[in-house]
């Protein structure tokens, strides 16, 4: 309390003081907000906060969807249609959740790129990077498991092909595929499993890992810009609050507005109910998996071994390379313009993803 104040504290102030004495809220708040950001706040640092915001909104909309959704093979589709067509604003919450998942993937991508280009994965931040990679895996698993839940044709076929791909993992593939499907083919057991993984296992894991990620980040402190002398950095340094939080909240507002707009412009529309007969439907994964989908069409990934190479070995190696990155790249140089291999590598990966995604889209018209 303010010792110089002569007026008696109000009831609210007394309650706050009571709680603060027992919880230490003011100290926690001060510790959370007063973190020095070397070189000052920047728009480039907003992605992590945006991810947290998107996740919270996914949790909120996800919980709301569960008020009506029934995870059973004979009701999943009907209950999802009910949410879309009957429940007030159901279409909006479902579409928000759908576009939120896309925003999550895009933002993970931006966040990882920023950390990579700024060299912020380097010593002493290796563990933050590793926890982040695990979180990347969790986000992908969220997308994959959530995709099945509406139980329409799109859902069914993405899962069928996705699980067949996991089946190609050496040694454990068959067990893994059967474990996920709860049998030899997708059905009720698959839906039950994907549901519990999507709404319980993954959120719990994500919260734990995100907590660890942020704890490690606060422990190491922010990396700051990759160039500038100590004096320059010191002169520009400010606390997390208010300038960085201001930038974060503006970015969150923009993300929210974008997701809402997409939900309005392109609301979720279900296809026919899931069946093992694809009919006229041409199965295709969500757009952020299109490059991988197109990759598997290549002749060089044909045949049993080729498929293992394209679907398991190549993505596996890429993830392993990312995990090993801070241990391979031990030079303390963080300036991306002085790290030609990293810069060229990043550009090549971007071009590769872009080319394969575009060619998958071009390929569509040859199928009709």
């Amino acid at each position: 309390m303010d010792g110089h104040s002569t007026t008696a504290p109000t009831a609210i102030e007394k309650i706050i003081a009571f709680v603060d004495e027992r919880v230490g809220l003011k100290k926690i708040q001060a510790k959370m907000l007063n973190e020095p950001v070397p070189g000052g706040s920047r728009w480039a640092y907003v992605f992590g906060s945006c991810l947290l915001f998107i996740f919270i909104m996914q949790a909120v909309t996800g919980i709301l969807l569960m008020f009506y959704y029934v995870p059973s093979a004979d009701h999943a589709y009907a209950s999802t249609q009910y949410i879309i067509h009957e429940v007030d604003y159901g279409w909006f919450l479902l579409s928000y959740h759908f576009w939120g998942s896309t925003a999550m993937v895009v933002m993970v991508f931006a966040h990882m790129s920023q950390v990579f280009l700024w060299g912020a994965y380097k010593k002493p931040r290796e563990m933050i990077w590793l926890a982040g990679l695990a979180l990347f895996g969790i986000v992908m698993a969220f997308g994959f498991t959530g995709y099945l839940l509406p139980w329409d044709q799109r859902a069914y076929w993405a899962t069928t092909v996705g699980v067949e791909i996991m089946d190609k993992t050496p040694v454990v593939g068959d067990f893994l595929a059967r474990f996920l499907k709860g049998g030899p083919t997708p059905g009720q057991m698959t839906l039950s499993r994907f549901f519990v993984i999507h709404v319980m296992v993954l959120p719990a894991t994500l919260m734990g890992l995100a907590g660890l990620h942020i704890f490690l980040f606060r422990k190491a402190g922010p990396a700051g810009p990759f160039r500038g002398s100590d004096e320059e950095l010191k002169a520009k340094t400010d606390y997390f609050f208010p300038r960085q939080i201001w930038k974060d909240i503006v970015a969150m507002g923009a993300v929210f507005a974008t997701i809402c707009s997409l939900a309005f412009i392109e609301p979720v529309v279900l296809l026919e109910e899931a069946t093992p007969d694809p009919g006229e439907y041409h199965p295709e994964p969500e757009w952020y998996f299109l490059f991988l989908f197109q990759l598997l069409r290549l002749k060089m990934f044909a045949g049993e071994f080729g498929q293992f190479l394209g679907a398991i070995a190549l993505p596996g190696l890429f993830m392993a390379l990312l995990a090993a990155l801070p241990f391979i790249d031990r030079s303390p140089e963080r300036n991306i313009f002085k790290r030609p291999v990293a810069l060229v590598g990043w550009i090549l990966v971007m071009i590769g993803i872009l080319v394969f995604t575009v060619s998958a889209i071009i390929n569509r018209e040859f199928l009709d």
Partner: protein
Amino acid sequence: MNQPKLKSKVACTDREIGEVTRVIVDPLSLEISHIVVGNGATSPERQVPMARVQEVTDALVRLRIHSAEMDQLPALKRDDFVTIHDVEIAHLEEKVHVESGEVLVPVPELEKDVKRRTFFANFTQAIGLVIGLPLAFPVLKYLMKPMYAPLDNAWLKVGNVGKIKADDVGVQFKYKKKVKEAFMPEAEVEKNVWILKAKPETLDKIYHGKDMEFRDASGRHIWTNKKDVPFVVYSGKCPHLGCGFKWRSHKVLGQVFLCPCHLSIYDQTGKVLDGPAPRALDPLPIKISASGDIQIIDMEFKAGTKTQTRIV
């Protein structure tokens, strides 16, 4: 140089002028940038840059300046600073040791001379294992319950050969299969196969002059497709990654089976013409009645493998 300690005496070149009341830390380099010197009297506390410190010993901080110069150093403006309790600076406590002495707390009497600390620690782990291990197997079995269903060799009626109008043309037959999954009510799922009325030369390419035998995993005979029956049935599941393929006309290859997923292309004999598929289409057991009704055994094989592995 040692770090100056709180409460250390501070001396100028001529005389002692007070003690270290606080230190100021640079939040980025984590180095002590200034000491704050006060004498408890009326004159304000002064900020002395570390550059002005000549030597730090256990009890004394010796400055390079004359006591007369002290007045020219800036007075401490307390409001320009926060304490390290109000801000989170990583690794600060590892770098800065300015306490004037250790703060001690007595060890409880019962904790003195405990001999079996390691034993107790290990015992705690062992009890954890005793709780966890017996659960592992039941939990695994619990989750594995539906994973391995027995294979079903029942014949299913899928339609009549009257639907097939031309030779060597893939015709899709849709049928409903009854499934009873765990606790669920019996349901019908839509499935489909592709049936071909093959010309003799096509038939020869499929059968290579031999009947096609179907056996279960233990080698027990299930059925034989005779090489002279012109009707051939292919499982509707693409052997690449399990999508559903179609009968389509291709600009170069003519009439083919084409999978829209990863663009595997098969000819009417099921052979891979193009695309990533690792093996030919999977023929199934087929039986034609005198009235032309077609019956099949609904089999599914694992996709993406060179050899067939039956899973349904």
